[in-house]
């Protein structure tokens, strides 16, 4: 049975209000308290009758902006070779961060170093990712590496990008971000071992342990 138009209208209004509140939270997190696109603006959009005197927090202690930015929606082409996943993941991170907008599977095979560091027999020669970190370093990107738990990797995916490889999976992917409770990945071999672009805790445990190389912000 169809709901009444009044109920449908109320749901639509609630959705618009939820969006405004989410936008206000985003502005708050970014320190935009007053003016256009601010907490103040979204609050007045939610309730134009409100009267208040904004008193934003004190930002007088200056800090450098160290937040790393990347485009999590950037497409990841399917890998051409069966052994080139680490180069594809590296190329995605370089493109997504803007470090090298023209990075490709082939260019990163060359930068990693074929055949000593990557080759058709073994793929990437070291799962610790030293050869990958050397490439990031060439672009001025500082990295760290570790064998992480799912919770550690999920948390990292929320604040930085990088790439990771499951030892059982024998496959490297890049980090797009978080997908609810899962890790959102850029996968150059979608469907391999049943994984597309979202890695659950169960998948992580099934395909790990995972070596993660991430960019320091």
């Amino acid at each position, binding site marked *: 049975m169809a709901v009444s138009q009044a109920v449908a209208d109320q749901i639509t209004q609630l959705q618009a209000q939820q969006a405004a509140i989410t936008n206000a*939270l985003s502005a708050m997190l970014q320190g935009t308290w007053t003016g256009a696109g601010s907490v103040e603006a979204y609050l007045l959009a939610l309730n134009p009758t409100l009267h208040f005197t904004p008193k934003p927090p004190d930002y007088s202690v200056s800090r450098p902006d160290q937040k790393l930015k990347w485009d999590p929606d950037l497409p990841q082409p399917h890998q051409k070779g069966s052994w080139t996943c680490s180069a594809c993941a590296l190329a995605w991170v370089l493109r997504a961060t803007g470090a090298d907008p023209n990075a490709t599977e082939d260019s990163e095979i060359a930068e990693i170093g074929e055949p000593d560091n990557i080759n058709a027999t073994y793929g990437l020669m070291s799962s610790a990712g030293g050869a990958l970190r050397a490439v990031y370093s060439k672009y001025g990107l500082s990295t760290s590496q570790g064998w992480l738990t799912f919770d550690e990797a999920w948390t990292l995916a929320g604040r930085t990008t990088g790439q990771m490889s499951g030892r059982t999976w024998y496959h490297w992917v890049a980090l797009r971000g978080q997908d609810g409770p899962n890790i959102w990945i850029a996968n150059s071999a979608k469907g391999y071992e049943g994984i597309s672009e979202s890695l659950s805790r169960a998948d992580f445990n099934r395909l790990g342990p995972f070596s993660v190389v991430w960019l320091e912000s």
Partner: protein
Amino acid sequence: MDDDQAMALLTTLQRQQALQTQAIAAALEGRWTGAPPSVEAFLYALNPTLQGKITPNPPVLSGG
């Protein structure tokens, strides 16, 4: 829109409201960035497309 669709939408709105409430609580407690329960984490849960597009600038918190 039928009853089932309306109920599904209301369930989503309830879930979003719970996340927003938790985000406000995190702000009140000064947990702005990083792993849950932070404002940043709840914001990404509310809208995953914001990942990588937010530049947190949390207030300077006094010690003690």
